[in-house]
């Protein structure tokens, strides 16, 4: 009985999305989405960082290793960075990383960077819903997964 339950659970693909949100814009945008009661799936789990430029590519790969089906980095719109220039570096860094992931065969759709301001609660929800939709289409990520890590 228990076993059956487990297999049916596995069949229903519940993607895990790890979202890194900058404190000043996107995390606040996510707060606004909450305050506005905008729905997006519970699969999205947010990690607060001071700025999108704090996100190390290590973290992104680590998330994929540990079972994330999609990773999102959200920061202030370029030009609006609380720290003036942080997201310009984010933009360069992850433009390259995205292409690299693609180059080694991780689908581009699994990795999203977007600019979401503190006022864009609806955009936050829309972006997360969009990511979920794309990842759902791709199915579970098995690439780069650390098989020892039991989710």
């Amino acid at each position, binding site marked *: 009985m228990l076993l059956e339950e487990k297999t049916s659970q596995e069949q229903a693909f519940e993607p895990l999305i790890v979202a890194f949100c900058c404190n000043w814009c996107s995390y606040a945008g996510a707060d606004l989405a909450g305050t506005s009661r905008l729905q997006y799936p519970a699969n999205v789990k947010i990690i607060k960082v001071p700025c999108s430029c704090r996100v190390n590519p290590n973290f992104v790969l680590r998330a994929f290793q*540990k079972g994330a089906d999609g990773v999102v980095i959200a920061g202030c719109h370029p030009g609006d960075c609380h720290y003036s220039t942080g997201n310009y570096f984010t933009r360069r860094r992850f433009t390259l990383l995205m292409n690299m992931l693609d180059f080694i065969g991780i689908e581009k759709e699994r990795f999203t960077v977007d600019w979401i301001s503190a006022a864009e609660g609806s955009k936050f929800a829309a972006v997360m819903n969009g990511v979920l939709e794309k990842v759902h289409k791709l199915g579970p990520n098995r690439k780069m997964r650390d098989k*020892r*890590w*039991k*989710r």
Partner: protein
Amino acid sequence: MKKIAKDRLPELLQKMAEAGKVYAPVNKGGKTNFSVWQPGDAADLTTLRSAVPAKSVLFPQSETYLRFAQQGKKLSIETVGGEADEYVLFGVRACDAKSFALLDKVFLSEPVDQFYASRRELGTVVAVACREPEDACFCRAFDIAADAPAGADVCVWDTGDDLFWLVQTEKGERLTARLAGLLEDAGAADDAALPALQAQIRAQLDELPLAALVAEKKHQALKQLFDDEQWLACSESCLGCGTCTYVCPTCHCYDIQDYDTGTGTERSRCWDSCMFSDFTQMAHGNPRKTQKERFRQRFMHKLVYYPNNYNEIACVGCGRCLEACPVNMNIVKVMKKIGGEAR
């Protein structure tokens, strides 16, 4: 002596694989290494040396051997690792075969390494003689016969058309029995051809640039060797990578690491390299602080410490480190420099 047409090698491997795993040299992604033979794989007997030595079958680069988890106050422990079933290790060269004997001395003396022991016990080693030794080979310096591998259960010679099959041990006998349908008895002509082939191989060995190399145990006092000025000179070009250790059939240091699986812990061991800055790192730091000390450790171990313990040099002259070292610093240069030995 038995033999089989070389083009029937896949059948032979297939037959072996029916009874258990077969490790054979297979080219994958451009490099030949020992891996579990799958139907369709072409065993590569042309490439002289596998990139990673055959020791990786007996002593895998990494091996999980313990799983434990805590549930409340209960601790569950499960031992995994090692080999459970009989298997065949096919296509080992004389140097690698000799390395097993050297590893045995370390792993099979008390306390016995049970994972190594299980693999050693359950494995049947089929060695193959070297048709074309290369410039970096110097096995002869250690009295290893590339033309007649020792220490294996079965010896195989590649004549070009046929594979000669000569049983060496009882284990080899059992394997041969299993392959009865495929192996045929060699004829008298074959029996005559073998020594000729071996002689031809030996002639090639004579021609090698390092043919004259003499590997003798260092007789100087340990302290004197340890303080030899040449260590600095030799190690100055060393980059501190672990290539030489990882391609070495006799290097056997390992590190133990725990991995948090989220629900428990997996303990594994993996090859370690004395060339690495974090080798034998302890709470107080690293006992060998500079590359000179780490470099010295490796070669003192091979040329002095190991011989002091087991009366043999821990090198089989396979030449892998000569080929693989990014800057061509290697054991031959060290042997010639250290202890004032003349060239």
